[in-house]
């Protein structure tokens, strides 16, 4: 018995197909939404909006393409257009500034960034530290890091989801991981897990 009495067989079939394709990605979508919004309620609303939008525009989905990338693109767009606007202080990043800062830091031998930060230091970190370090990343970087390292998207898929060239994906990912390392290092130093005085090479 259909939930909506005016549904015909075709729409029931499409709904079933949509649910089969879409519901397996709900955990991934929810996790990404949670890390983008940093708030459970917003994440739930965002995921719900994404599903409703995806469902309504399902006829535009090309069957020979990647559904996960398609629905993540909807997630990204919905987040950018609706949820980021809600925030009082949107976390936007001046890429030029970040780039300069990054290069300057890389060249500054007095900065303690990487060296000495070994596997044991990583192991000492709490999951909350990692989550907090991720949350400190600007949206543009956090999203590509999440998509690449947590959701295992290829660069090509990320480029489609985010809507930028492959080179930009690689560059954002590189800078995102670099910033993440810096934040993790701060936590490790604060926790006494690493030697603050050791100097970086790059």
């Amino acid at each position, binding site marked *: 018995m259909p*939930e*909506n009495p005016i549904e015909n067989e075709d*729409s029931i079939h*499409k709904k079933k197909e*949509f*649910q089969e394709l879409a*519901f397996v990605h*709900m*955990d*991934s*979508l*929810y*996790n990404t939404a*949670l890390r983008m919004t940093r708030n459970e309620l917003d994440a*739930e609303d965002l*995921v*719900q909006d994404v*599903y*409703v*939008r995806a*469902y*309504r*525009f*399902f*006829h535009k989905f090309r069957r020979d393409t990647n559904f996960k990338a398609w629905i993540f693109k909807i997630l990204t*767009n919905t987040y950018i*257009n609706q949820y980021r606007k809600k925030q009082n202080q949107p976390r936007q990043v001046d890429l030029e500034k970040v*780039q300069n800062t*990054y*290069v300057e830091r*890389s*060249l500054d031998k007095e900065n303690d960034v*990487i*060296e000495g*930060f070994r*596997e044991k230091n*990583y192991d000492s*970190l709490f*999951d909350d530290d*990692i*989550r907090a370090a*991720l949350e400190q990343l600007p949206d543009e970087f956090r999203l590509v*890091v999440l998509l*690449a*390292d*947590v959701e295992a998207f*290829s*660069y090509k898929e990320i480029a489609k989801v985010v809507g930028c060239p492959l*080179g930009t994906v*690689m*560059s954002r*990912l*590189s800078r995102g*991981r*670099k910033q*993440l*390392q810096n934040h*993790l290092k701060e936590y490790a130093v604060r926790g006494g897990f690493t030697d603050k005085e050791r100097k970086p*090479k*790059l």
Partner: protein
Amino acid sequence: MKENQEQLVAMITGYIDGELSAKDATKVEALLRESKEYYDYYLTEKRTKELLQKRVSILRAPLHLRNRIRRQLGRTGFRPGFWELLQGLFEYRPLAASLAFSVLAILIILPNYRLIHNSSMPLQSQGMEGVPAVRNAQLAGEIICLDCDLFNPLLRPSEHHDPVLHRPGLRADDGSIWTILVGKAGNKLQYSRDLLKKRATLTGTIFENSRYIQVSKYEVL
């Protein structure tokens, strides 16, 4: 120099993710063999990636969310409505949507440009399409008094107008009522009470929209 270093670092990222071409991968491998600094960087970034893969916990979407979405989909139509499409268009493609909207507006406005442009000349512009609002024409019909024929049924006897002052008009054969403007021939019609209820053809300038006629000559049939 800075750009070069940044490019190399980005290439290391691509190498870690297995996204480089064979040629670039060989280049990065050579760099890692030659430079301890880049090799250290490579190891650190690789560990960061592994850390995220291992330690970023994957939460299950709450059951109530799944149920909520199922219920919502049950209530949702399959295809977006017009306004939703329009909203989506402006949200996701604001430039393209604005451009399309502008083109559409121009297409709508352009054919009516003359109408808007000539709005200071209503006599010429407000006619039916292809027919000027003011033109010379001949009307055939019955000569009537506008007050007697149109208003009297609505008025009390005390409010009836002075029968000496009939206001001449014409009930044309198509049923339209025309007011005869005061003028040389118009005055004759006004004061010739015996013309009332007679059929006549009036020739003169007609104001189509306001149904006035400036009579230059008339002929009683």
